[in-house]
């Protein structure tokens, strides 16, 4: 089946999310859709999937115009979508999830679960998915859950499969497996639209590439294009992809963590006996697939976790048991992983956000009164210095793009006298230009002698910035290895395998 989008335009008020976008995908082809966050990729796919109605333009299937009023229409026409966030019921089995939405029933309305089981086995065998139809989805690893989503789409006879940022939650090995699956699907005649912002993956998998920037198609480079060419096209200007940094000049140990154990209210252990140290002027990268204890580790350091055992000593100061405020006062800078949830107050102005962790005294508060003039001057200075694109310091943080929001946080944290910087996912959902900037700031912080704990699920980021890499798996340290460790080794470690000679 051939799918063509022709001059699709979608507006939200005055914002043009998709501006006359055209693309074609033939059966047996992988079409890569490349663009930064907010470029309009997801909007376009939601138009295709019937979630939004296009204001102009048309969708053609096998050269016949079609009109989807809702996802049901799109599914019936043979379009399948695997969302970035899975749409699965965790307490249902694989077969139950696959039949959800088009349940076949026997006499007296009894669910025909056997038919669904058979269908799962059939598709699973055809592509070598190794899926157990009776396994509960909540017990499956993320990579396997994604296969369930794919089987779900295929079981509805999807001929066009849309994969929206499918690798965001996968380990490098799982990503390789997914690429393999995509190739098999392609050979069996499925047309695939592969949405991503990762250059490496798109070059590896795609037969054709369409690059979108600010809602419009800016180019259709061949897959042989270089990373630099693709990045420049995606961002609109040449981008430095590698982080320039001098070798670390580590000083004495600054942060020493011993036997850290973090438990939640229900008694589940999230961080289990973690020990490490970071020296001055050194970046320790924490690698791992999302959900392996990284969040709890950083929150424990900040005093945000309730049940913490072990010790965390920063320059002879025990951080454990301190309130968040006293941890910050001890000189800890924190870039939280959930920017909008924990980093900013969306309805506060940029200036107000700049004093979020300094509302108790100098320099912004005196005699219980906010010093507007000092705050505004400070905010204006940082706005210029960090190249934060905004209409002014009075603009609400919620109205900024992800990259600029993150710059506000980075500016706030790096403006204090730091003894430790904890950066969790500092560039998640941030445009390439801002990534470049934030990375430079992190390296500069390291070079000024501050120890940095960098947590990221993007292996590229860890490799680019870290001086040493600690890999977490299920709350335990798999190993702490030097920066030059091959990606394959790191990938295996992220899956919990202890490589030889790398014991912590």
């Amino acid at each position, binding site marked *: 089946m051939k799918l063509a989008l022709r001059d699709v335009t979608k507006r*939200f*008020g*005055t*914002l043009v*999310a998709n501006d006359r976008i055209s693309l074609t995908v033939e059966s047996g082809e992988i079409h890569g859709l490349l663009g930064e966050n907010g470029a309009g990729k997801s*909007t376009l796919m939601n138009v295709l999937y019937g979630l939004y109605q296009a204001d102009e333009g048309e969708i053609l299937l096998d050269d016949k115009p079609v009109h989807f009023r809702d996802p049901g229409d799109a599914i019936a026409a043979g379009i399948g979508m695997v969302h970035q966030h899975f749409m699965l019921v965790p307490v249902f089995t694989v077969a139950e999830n696959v039949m959800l939405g088009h349940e076949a029933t026997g006499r007296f309305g009894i669910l025909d679960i056997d038919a669904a089981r058979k269908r799962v086995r059939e598709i699973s065998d055809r592509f070598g998915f190794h899926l157990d139809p009776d396994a509960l989805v909540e017990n499956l690893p993320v990579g396997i859950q994604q296969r369930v989503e794919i089987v779900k789409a295929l079981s509805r006879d999807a001929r066009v499969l849309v994969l929206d940022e499918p690798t965001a939650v996968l380990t490098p090995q799982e990503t390789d497996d997914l690429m393999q699956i995509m190739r098999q699907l392609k050979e069996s005649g499925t047309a695939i639209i592969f949405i991503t912002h990762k250059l490496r993956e798109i070059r590896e998998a795609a037969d054709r590439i369409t690059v979108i920037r600010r809602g419009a198609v800016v180019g259709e480079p061949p897959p042989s294009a270089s990373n630099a060419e693709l990045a420049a096209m995606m961002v*609109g200007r040449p981008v430095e992809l590698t982080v320039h940094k001098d070798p670390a000049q580590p000083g004495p140990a600054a942060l020493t963590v011993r036997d850290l154990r973090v438990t939640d209210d229900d008694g589940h252990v999230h961080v289990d006996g973690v020990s490490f140290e970071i020296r001055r002027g050194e970046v320790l990268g924490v690698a791992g697939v999302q959900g392996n204890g990284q969040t709890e580790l950083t929150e424990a350091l*900040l005093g*945000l976790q309730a049940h913490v055992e072990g010790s965390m000593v920063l320059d002879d100061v025990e951080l454990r048991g301190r*309130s*968040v*405020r*006293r*941890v*910050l*006062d001890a000189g800890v800078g*924190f870039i*939280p992983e*959930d920017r909008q*949830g*924990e*980093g*900013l*107050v*969306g*309805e*506060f*102005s940029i200036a*107000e956000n700049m*004093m*979020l*962790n300094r*509302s*108790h005294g100098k320099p912004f*508060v005196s005699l*219980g*009164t*906010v010093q*507007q003039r000092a705050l505004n001057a400070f905010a204006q200075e940082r706005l210029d210095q960090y190249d934060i*694109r*905004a*209409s*002014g310091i*009075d*603009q*609400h943080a919620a*109205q*900024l*793009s992800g990259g*600029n929001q993150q710059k506000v946080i980075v500016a706030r944290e790096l403006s204090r006298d730091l003894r430790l910087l904890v950066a969790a996912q500092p560039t998640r959902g941030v445009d390439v230009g801002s990534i470049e900037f934030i990375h430079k700031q992190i390296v500069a912080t390291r070079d000024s002698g501050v120890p940095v704990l960098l947590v990221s699920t993007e292996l590229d980021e860890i490799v680019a910035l870290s001086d040493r890499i600690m890999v977490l798996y299920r709350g335990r340290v798999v190993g702490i290895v030097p920066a030059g460790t091959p990606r394959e080794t790191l990938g295996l470690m992220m899956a919990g395998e202890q490589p030889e000679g790398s014991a912590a």
Partner: protein
Amino acid sequence: MSEDTKPPAPEAERPPEEEQQKIVVARLATTRELLREITTGPVMTAFLSLVLAMVVGSVMILFTDEHVRSTAGYIGARPSDFFDAVWTSISGAYEAMFRGAIYNSEGLDFQARIRPITETLNFAAPLIMAGLGVGLAFRAGLFNIGGRGQMLLAGAGAGWVAINVDAPTAIHLPLAIIAGMVVGGLWGGLAGLLKARTGAHEVIVTIMLNYVGYYLVFFALSEQNILQQKGSINPKSAPMPDSAVLPKLLGVRFNLHAGIILALVAVAVTWWLLNRSAWGYRFRAVGANPSAARAAGIDVGRTYTTVMLIAGGLVGLAGVNQVLGTVTSGVSVDLDAGIGFDAITVALLGRSRPLGILAAGLLFGAFKAGGFAMQASENIPVDIVLVIQSLIVLFIAAPPLVKAIFRIPVKEAA
């Protein structure tokens, strides 16, 4: 309403220099966005809710009007009769309301003519005070439904000091006022403390504390050695001594007392607290995003307690206003007169901004004063005013409804 109604400027990204065309488009878009923000923002919603509520109120006035109903019976034959009746009924009703609330042109002398506006101010004062208490809690993300209990306790506290302390006015009156605010604050702070320490939801706690407070005050008023008037068997205290009564502002012919001045001071102080002080900054941060506040080292639990202390004090001031100003014949359990709950409406209509609350309090004060006149002269049940007030809240609480009725475009999520 100059306070924090900063003009929103939603263009997040400045377009790069080479795209001159796009800058022009972006500028246009900014202006349009700005206009749309203003027209679709909460101020407009509040105003439209008011208009809508008065329209629906008009329909209800018509239903209660005998003459309108009878002319509707032969509307086919003489429609003009019907429309005349409709016009007379509605214009009469709102005219009566105006006469009762603002200026009575039929008054015999000047004092009688301006008397309505002074009544409005008197009704408005406690609504503004309590509205500030509820609104302040809203800004910190808390629903203070405990206005009734806080007012009763504060009134009892102020009454106790007024009766049991003997001092010249310059000391006696401030002492009684402060005592009332402190008691009200502690009652509110209790709810905040329970939320901070145990996570108990403040809505449940404040509602239940209303009952506890009511019966506590009832008990105090029934005990000879606590608050009950000596030799009386009614649950009521002795009248307030003159040295602890808020002075009348315009002489004995008017009821207006110094409560409205206290209300204005409370507006100013609350405005400063919210918009200029470090405490207010933290209140707003906790209200807007408690997780971010916590991660930035703000003690969310302590903030909840502090906010409820101050909110209780402000609501308590309304109780003081009643006991020492409006009804000086003695503390009783009905001193709150529904103000504790009306304050929620006032805070909502005022969008929890001090100046908005001032405006909403004055409006509701006018409704109260005008409602009585409406009933007296036009025979329209005073309940219609309550209906209008309730409808305002209903429309405000359901902004999509108002937006749909007035066909204001709703932003689609991108």
